[in-house]
């Protein structure tokens, strides 16, 4: 089946955010775009899924229960990190520098006004 070959091309996305509606809406949209989507509702799960599924793209919230996005990131070996987009309401200078030092290039401010625009942003980066 072409399914498996397409599967090989299918990018895996991990959505780590404690807000269920955000996860669900993003997941639905990304799935429609052909991404394979994994969800994590807290830092611990995010870390586990990340290590298990080795997603290509990770949408990482900063403030999450159990672990912050930064703590999660620091548990992931560099070679399997994938592309990380930090989505957060507020990231301080310190945290920003910490993320940057770990190779994170993209930050997307939450709350985002338009989910489609966010999707455009993701596709533009990794589509």
């Amino acid at each position, binding site marked *: 089946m072409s399914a498996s070959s397409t599967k090989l091309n299918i990018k895996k996305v991990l959505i780590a955010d404690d807000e269920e*509606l*955000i996860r669900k*809406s*993003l997941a*639905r949209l990304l799935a429609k775009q052909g991404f394979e989507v994994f969800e994590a509702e807290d830092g611990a799960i995010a870390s586990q899924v990340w290590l298990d599924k080795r997603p290509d793209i990770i949408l990482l919230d900063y403030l999450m229960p159990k672990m912050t996005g930064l703590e999660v990131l620091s548990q992931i070996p560099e070679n399997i990190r994938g592309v990380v987009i930090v989505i957060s*309401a*507020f990231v301080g200078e310190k945290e920003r520098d910490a993320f940057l030092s770990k190779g994170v290039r993209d930050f997307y401010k939450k*709350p985002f006004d338009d*989910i*489609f625009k966010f999707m455009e942003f993701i596709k533009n980066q990794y589509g």
Partner: protein
Amino acid sequence: MPKRQSRSFLDSPRIVSDFETTPYKRLRSVFLKNVLWVDDDPLVLSSAKRLLRMHGFNIHTIDNPLLVEDWLAQNTPDVIVSDQRMPQMTGTTLLSNIKNKFPQITRIMVTGFMDQQLVQQSINEADVFRFITKPWVETELLADIVQGIEHSEKLKSKEVLSSQIREQNKILQKFTENLEEIIFERTFELASAQKEQAHKNIKIKNLVKFIQDLNVMKETQEIIHYFYNDFKKEFGIINCFFAYTDFNLDSKILFQLKNKWVESKVEKFWSAKKEIRTFDKEDQQYLSNEIKMPITQLLSVPLMRFREDLAVPHTLFIECDFKQNVESEKISAALDFITSRLQILSLGIERILSNHRVEFESERWEKTFDSISDPLCVLDKNYQVLRKNSVYNKQIREVSREMVEKKVLHKNSRIYQVYLYGIEETSAHGFENYLCYFRDVTEERMLYQKLLQGEKMVAVGLLAGNIAHELNNPLTGIRSMAQLLTHSTTTKKAYISDLMEIDRACQRCQSIIQSLIDFSDIKEGSLMRISLQDVVHKTLPLLKTALRFHSTKILLPEKDVFILGEMKLLQQVLFNLVHNACQAMSEAGVVTIQVKASKKKAVLEVSDTGPGVSDEILSRLFEPFASTKKEGEGTGLGLSFSKNVVEKMNGQITLLKNSSDGASFQIQIPETK
């Protein structure tokens, strides 16, 4: 008398017989008695000599009667025997002479011719004791002589007795005289002693009176006046000065001026000299300078001091009119007078001065007690009020055990905290009395409430920030969902506009939340270049609620006015000012917010159309809690906070206009390009 003599003469034989019966007895008694025999016949004399010597008599013979007196001047015979007929003079004459000159010598006459006439004459003239006739009978002669001697002795002893009596009489008389004198003296002494005693009694009485009178006197000047009068009565006095130091250590002089007692404050302090001084030149000079009159003859009397705690010397000066040298006795009497009264006087004055001091002190304490602006009272163990101050009378009026135990009293919409302090502790029963102190804590409580409110606001602010963050996430989710559904092909077209409505509502929510986040997130930041217009724009959304009853005029210049400041803090300041303005206007009014640049100053003004700031608050407008707001309306910290913020940005905040039709606050901050 002569008859009797003659009869005794005729009776003589009886005596002779008596002599014969006891010759030796009688002889012995006449032994060595002196007999003078006068006769011109030497034969008579020699026979008489022989006879009398033989019988133990001492006999002296004289043949010339003229020599008798001379001899008698040297000798005192007991008996004289004389012959009658002698050529120089008769025996009668001789014996009569002798009788007159030496009456104690018994006289015997010897005669050859005894006749009645001679006998009579001799007895009468010479008081002759016996007559002996010649020739004599020896025994008769001896008996006569012995009798004569006895007679003479009788006479002698009589004489001795009488002279003794005379002497005694004399002594007696003298004694009597002395006695009178003594009695007179004694009487005089007694009288003068009585007088003296009376005088002394009067003195003592006066002293006692002095003590008694002094004891009831209330003023020093009374005492001095009293002493003055006493002294004046006795010694005369011109003036009297009393120099003393009162409890404030002020030196004063009390003296009489035109019959009135005057007190004046002086510089001089009389040191504690002990002795009374007369005519002290230094004092005289000083006092006469004080009263502007010459003073002479001054007695300086330092009063005694009994209590060490009142150890300030007092001196009494008495100006007298003694003539100095002439009346030194009077001076010493005056000094005695003073000395006797000095102790009493000193005690009296000390008593009064210490009374004054006690009165003054207690009055001061009373005043102090009364002037304490918190209510105070002194209670006994049974909560009976013993003393109270005037504020207590006005505000508290009664006290009870419950009140004290509850420690808080609500009265006339004031709140008092009640404190109890024990006083006069006695070991047996603890405290006898208590001081009850009511502290008005109404203002304090209000401030505390406001402070609590303020803290609540801060907490609410923090909470609002957190909540805002929490709300943002689900809102984002809602919006995303709405957007997804809007673009979903399966969504009915009729729902699309509703979904878009949801999206917009969420967006509004988010923008309010953002403002709230920004507003509540007060962190000390650095000064940034910001524009006042921006401040206004960012703050206005938060004031929507406050401004909903009022209209708003926003006057902003097109060109941004920049300052170096902190956005969030300035937002707070503007928020406060507008909020205050809105609250100041009880009816719908206009709030004007204006930004302008003037003389390198960036100006932000907030004006209202309210009634203006009351005088009551005006003076402490920018102080914390100077609020007109009721509890729950605000913290009362707004303006003081604003002042702090503006001054931090090198600016100032002033009440630009304050009238009955509105108030206007102005903030000036240096403009930056």
